[in-house]
């Protein structure tokens, strides 16, 4: 009798917990649907390196601000810059960030007047490749991959730019030594080709970079799917975070759900 009761209790609890999970997931889906219905004016705040990719998507009307890549050098400055843009976007119904955790810059970002949607990624590479799964695949192929796209080449840092900067600061010998220290983990350059014009110019630069580091160059296809889904709020629930007004982002939100 006791066993039967405890079994029934366990089954009951299991059903209850199962129902709670279904309700939670369903509430997230409803919230997404709600945002999509209500949001007539959407603001995108994204990193400069994916400006071309975002502007090439024309599925719905949105306004976009692109933040200079240079702020990535100091995550606390990037944080302040993003928060400033959120504060200036009070008359939108929804804000979508085109950033990952980005060295912790997103930690503490606060939604003010409207929900803020953030992709659940550590950096923007999955957005350029089309999915987190594609990113994991490429890292499995070669863990020491230095990803590059046209946006990084135009606006970001890389070993060639670092070398020139450090040579000015410290002289050639020390600059060479620093390049070896900073870039020794990398065994290939992977240029993400998103199919834009001027591909040859960027590919040529990527080749110059790989030759400089004496590592191989691969060209991999970019894919706009993840960005498109994000802008249309069509992602799986696990792919993004919704901050309600007043809520702050925390690093723990970027962890996989089964961690700890």
């Amino acid at each position, binding site marked *: 009798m006791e066993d039967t009761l405890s079994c029934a209790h366990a089954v009951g609890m299991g059903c209850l917990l199962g129902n709670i999970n279904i309700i939670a997931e369903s509430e997230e889906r409803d919230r997404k649907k709600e945002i999509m219905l209500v949001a007539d004016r959407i603001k995108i705040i994204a990193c400069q390196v994916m400006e071309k990719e975002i502007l090439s998507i024309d599925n719905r009307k949105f306004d976009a601000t692109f933040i200079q890549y240079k702020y990535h050098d100091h995550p606390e400055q990037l944080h302040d810059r993003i928060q400033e843009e959120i504060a200036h976007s009070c008359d939108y119904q929804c804000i979508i960030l085109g950033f*990952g955790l980005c060295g912790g810059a997103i930690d503490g970002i606060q939604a003010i007047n409207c929900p803020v949607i953030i992709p659940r990624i550590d950096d923007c590479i999955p957005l350029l490749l089309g999915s987190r799964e594609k990113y994991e695949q490429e890292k499995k192929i070669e863990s*020491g991959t230095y990803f590059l796209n046209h946006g990084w080449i135009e606006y970001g840092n890389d070993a060639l730019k670092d070398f020139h900067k450090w040579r000015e600061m*410290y002289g050639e010998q020390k600059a060479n030594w620093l390049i070896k220290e900073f870039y020794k983990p990398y065994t290939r350059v992977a240029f993400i080709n998103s199919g834009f014009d001027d591909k040859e110019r960027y590919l040529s630069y990527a080749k110059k970079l790989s030759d400089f580091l004496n590592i191989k160059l691969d060209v991999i296809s970019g894919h706009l799917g993840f960005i498109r889904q994000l802008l249309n709020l069509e992602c799986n629930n696990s792919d993004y975070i919704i901050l309600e007004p007043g809520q702050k982002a925390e*690093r723990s939100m970027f962890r*996989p759900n089964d961690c700890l």
Partner: protein
Amino acid sequence: MKKEEILSNLQNAVVLANFEDALSWTECGLKEGIPPFELITEGLSKGMIIVGQKYEDGDYYVTDMILSSGAMNEALTILLPYLKKNKRKYLGKVVLGSVADDIHDIGKNIVATMLIGAGFDVYDLGVNVSKEEFVNKAIEVQADIVGASAFMSSTYLHQPDVKKALDEAGLTPQVKYIIGGGAVYRQWAREIGADGYADDALEAVNLCKALMSAREV
């Protein structure tokens, strides 16, 4: 040449990241009979402490720190064999490594250098270190502290695995587990039950000293 002058020049070689001077003043110091350990603690290490302070004050970039650490390491290649030959009492034994799947090591290397300078016996396992390697080394050398570094947001999730492996091997709580790295933060250290977290190399040294002092009480 006076000992104080040699040690001062050695400090400067580190502060200015002059690799050649770091080597030549080390050799000069050895020729003058200055004990190798003193060259490390009173020369090289004091130079790195000045560098660390300059970095905290915003006068030095991270590249300056890395260069200075490099100059100190050049000198250590000459000095460490002397330390191994002459038995001496270390402040403690520390096993360090970058966690599994993490191939970055610049910060960890600076920590290793400064711990050596502070008088610790350091066993650096390098990068992409499995939890088993951390445990095996800790057992082999009878480590006092195990330090796991993670630079990336995707790899710091391995830090709890190392803690769990140390627990299951029966090494904790005697062996202390500390974490750090670009992706890591203080709250995370608390969540996973680490014994400490360090934001930079100076803090790591002070943390290890504090953990060893607490043991003596």
